[in-house]
């Protein structure tokens, strides 16, 4: 008996020392160098609601990426059928489908072509009759899933790049669910600007102006096939950015060839502009494009907005291009940043935003700490008042529970949120429940005439099943909450679940060490309860 008490006491002592060591970094700001070299330095992390910062959930519009892919496949199909001389009546895109109409005679040839050159497309709804045939082409379920995944992953990488360039310390960027990306930016000063930078698609395209038709006509009757109307900046200094342009739908080149983008300061003649440096294949492509289209207008389009449409005076070598669009300096800087970081493969939309200012965070911490001190003091006093010596024992267990709970949060780098603090306060009120059950039981056994020792042993043994059951139920609801919750709520679920484990350990096993020690020393003749 004596040995078992010793062993348990030593285990608790070791746990306590470990807990204190793990907690030191969270409460001491400047750790001495010898500490950092040998001992843990992880702190309890504060959630954005306590620290201040912005939490964003971005929804990646993957359908848009699918439409883009289908659109490209459709263009390729049109080109190939023309090259091979396969007669077709109509090839159009409807949402994420390509609809093909053709004379019945060409069906076999198209099928061969699809098999050899478009392995990802599957044929659905074939119809034929009257010498004509019609069918639709879609991407297979597997390819769609792969495309969706790739789109979200690539978006995440791009957003990570942008945030890195923006300069935020310890951002969290992760995938959430199927199409969402979670972004947390602690301590950020200008959330509006961060949102601008993160949310911009930044798809840069170079498109030729269609000069065979007039814009006015196209505005009235719709754009001719192969062209589209885009709006953008007009003449320099006009400030008008709703000027219509008729451009060819097919982009000659996109922003994927950008090696670097820099802001050039304003001169007396013009405002700041963004200079693009293309990589070597981009430079070759740009040289060819400009060489083939001298004297024509090349529109520089960013996210479907025309920034400028200068005349190509001569073949441009060297891989430099510029975007000037009547910017302010800040705007130009942010644009250069997103172009450097690359375009998003699909537009993103902010589905959820939570921004907390730093002053509110520190207020919340203060209020949380005050309610914790007041609440747990009330519980501690009540227990002493109601159970005397046994109450003191329960209170000591409560203090150890708090120590262990915080230490575990530090070990697992858990994030402490405002609901998490509320959880710690709440658990302080629940922690003594096990002691209440044990003490009531001991009282009962004493009333039944048992000796102090027998009462203690029976008290612990008989109270245990109910203690386990009650804690399991609370733990289960904590697990469901963790599953369901987002950010701050998860913090509550974590403190609830961890706290339940630590209360059982301290309230049941730790207090028992005291009684067993007294019993083994044959000194437990009377219990203060």
């Amino acid at each position, binding site marked *: 008996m004596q040995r078992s008490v010793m062993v348990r006491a030593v285990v608790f002592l070791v746990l306590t020392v470990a807990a204190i060591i793990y907690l030191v970094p969270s409460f001491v700001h400047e750790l001495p160098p010898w500490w950092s070299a040998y001992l843990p330095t992880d702190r309890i992390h504060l959630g954005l609601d306590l620290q201040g910062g912005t939490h964003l959930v971005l929804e990646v519009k993957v359908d848009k990426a699918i439409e883009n892919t289908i659109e490209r496949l459709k263009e390729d199909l049109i080109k190939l059928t023309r090259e091979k001389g396969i007669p077709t009546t109509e090839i159009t895109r409807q949402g994420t489908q390509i609809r093909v109409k053709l004379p019945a005679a060409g069906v076999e040839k198209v099928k061969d072509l699809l098999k050899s050159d478009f392995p990802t497309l599957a044929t659905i709804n074939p119809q034929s009759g009257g010498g004509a045939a019609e069918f639709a082409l879609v991407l297979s379920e597997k390819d769609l899933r792969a495309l969706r995944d790739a789109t979200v992953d690539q978006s995440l990488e791009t957003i990570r790049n942008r945030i890195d360039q923006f300069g935020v310390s310890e951002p969290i960027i992760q995938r959430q669910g199927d199409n969402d990306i979670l972004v947390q930016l602690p301590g950020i000063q200008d959330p509006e600007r961060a949102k601008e930078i993160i949310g911009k698609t930044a798809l840069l395209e170079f498109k030729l102006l269609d000069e065979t038709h007039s814009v006015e006509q196209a505005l009235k009757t719709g754009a001719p096939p192969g062209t589209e109307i885009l709006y953008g900046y007009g003449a320099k200094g006009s400030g008008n950015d709703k000027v219509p342009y008729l451009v060819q739908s097919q982009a000659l080149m996109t922003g994927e060839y950008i090696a670097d983008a820099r802001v050039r300061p304003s001169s007396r003649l013009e405002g700041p502009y963004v200079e693009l440096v293309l990589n070597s294949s981009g430079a070759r492509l740009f040289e060819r494009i400009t060489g083939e289209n001298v004297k024509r207008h090349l529109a520089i389009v960013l996210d479907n907005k025309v920034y400028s449409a200068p005349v190509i005076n001569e073949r441009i070598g060297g891989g430099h291009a510029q975007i000037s669009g009547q910017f302010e300096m800040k705007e130009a800087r942010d644009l250069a940043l997103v172009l450097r970081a690359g375009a998003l493969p699909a537009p993103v939309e902010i589905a959820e935003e939570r921004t907390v200012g730093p002053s509110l965070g520190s207020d919340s911490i203060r209020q949380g700490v005050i*309610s914790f001190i007041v609440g747990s003091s009330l519980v501690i006093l009540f227990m002493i008042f109601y159970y005397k010596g046994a109450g003191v024992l329960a209170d000591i267990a409560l203090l150890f529970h708090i120590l262990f709970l915080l230490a575990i949060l530090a070990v697992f780098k858990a994030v402490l949120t405002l609901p998490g603090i*509320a959880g710690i306060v*709440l658990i302080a*009120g629940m922690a003594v429940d096990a002691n209440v059950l044990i003490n009531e039981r001991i009282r009962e056994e004493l009333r039944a005439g048992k000796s102090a020792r027998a009462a203690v042993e029976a008290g612990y043994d008989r109270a245990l099943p*109910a203690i386990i059951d*009650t804690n*399991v139920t*609370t733990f289960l609801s*904590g697990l469901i909450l963790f599953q369901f919750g987002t950010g701050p709520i998860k913090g509550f679920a974590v403190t609830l679940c961890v706290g339940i484990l630590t209360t059982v350990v301290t309230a049941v096993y730790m207090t028992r060490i005291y009684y067993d020690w007294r019993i083994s020393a044959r000194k437990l003749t009377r219990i203060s309860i």
Partner: protein
Amino acid sequence: MELIKPGTTIPFTKYRHIAIAVSTVINLAVLGMLFFRGPDLGVDFAGGTVVQLRFQQKVTIPDIRAALGPLGEGDVVIQDFGQEGSNEFLIRLEKSTVQLGALNEQLRARLTEKFGQQGFEIRRIESVGPKVGGELRQKGTWSVIAATVMMGVYIWLRFDLRFGLGAVIALIHDVLVTAGALMLARYEFDLTIVAALLTVVGYSVNDTVIVCDRVRENMRKNKREGLEKLINMSINETLGRTIITTGTALLVLFALFLLGGGVIRPFAFALLVGFFSGVYSTIFIASPVILLWEKGKKPAK
């Protein structure tokens, strides 16, 4: 000290008919409120934007409304927040920030015009798009239902089916009473409220577990005794600990409610009501349900 003296025998089960009648009326009323008026939904569930503002000087709601002017489409609700004299306000907008576009800048510009740059502080912005709101609402509802059923199944496995059933009905009662109190107090339902409801479910069942545990023990000891008497005996024997365990939790919840700040107050309120209701429902709902079940079974034998 002892709150409940040993040997106390309050005939709780005798009052079960009144208790069940009263609770049924209350629960039906809450259900009626839920369906016909519906709870006030926070931005988490309804979508939209909430902005928390603090002013340096004393400001009235009409002042703020005048300064803001029209902000996007939809209703703009402004209310007091935080302690008396803290000059904090909540502005609730129907649309999310994406729909409104650069809301932060608009707000800042308009407030600066009226109150000066140092005169106010935007302390918090929460904005949820309509789609996310709907999803969260659904997930929240299901998680509360799942937790309730899970508690019932756990008690069924640990004790038996009638106890599990009693516990589930008691929990439904607790969740409804809590929801009703929140609606009456005009607190908005949001994610923290769901967290509170789940905690109520996980904690209220504790008292039921304690009583069930005792009923089982007493059944073994007194094999001949009728169930009603056993249940009554068990409730009386465990009454002290039921009140004290919940009581200590209520102590900290009072502290949280009064001192924890505006964001935590509705959460603490929900837990206060739910835990309190948990004690009541164990005695007056769960136990009678077990009895009714047993009585309903007898004629079939």
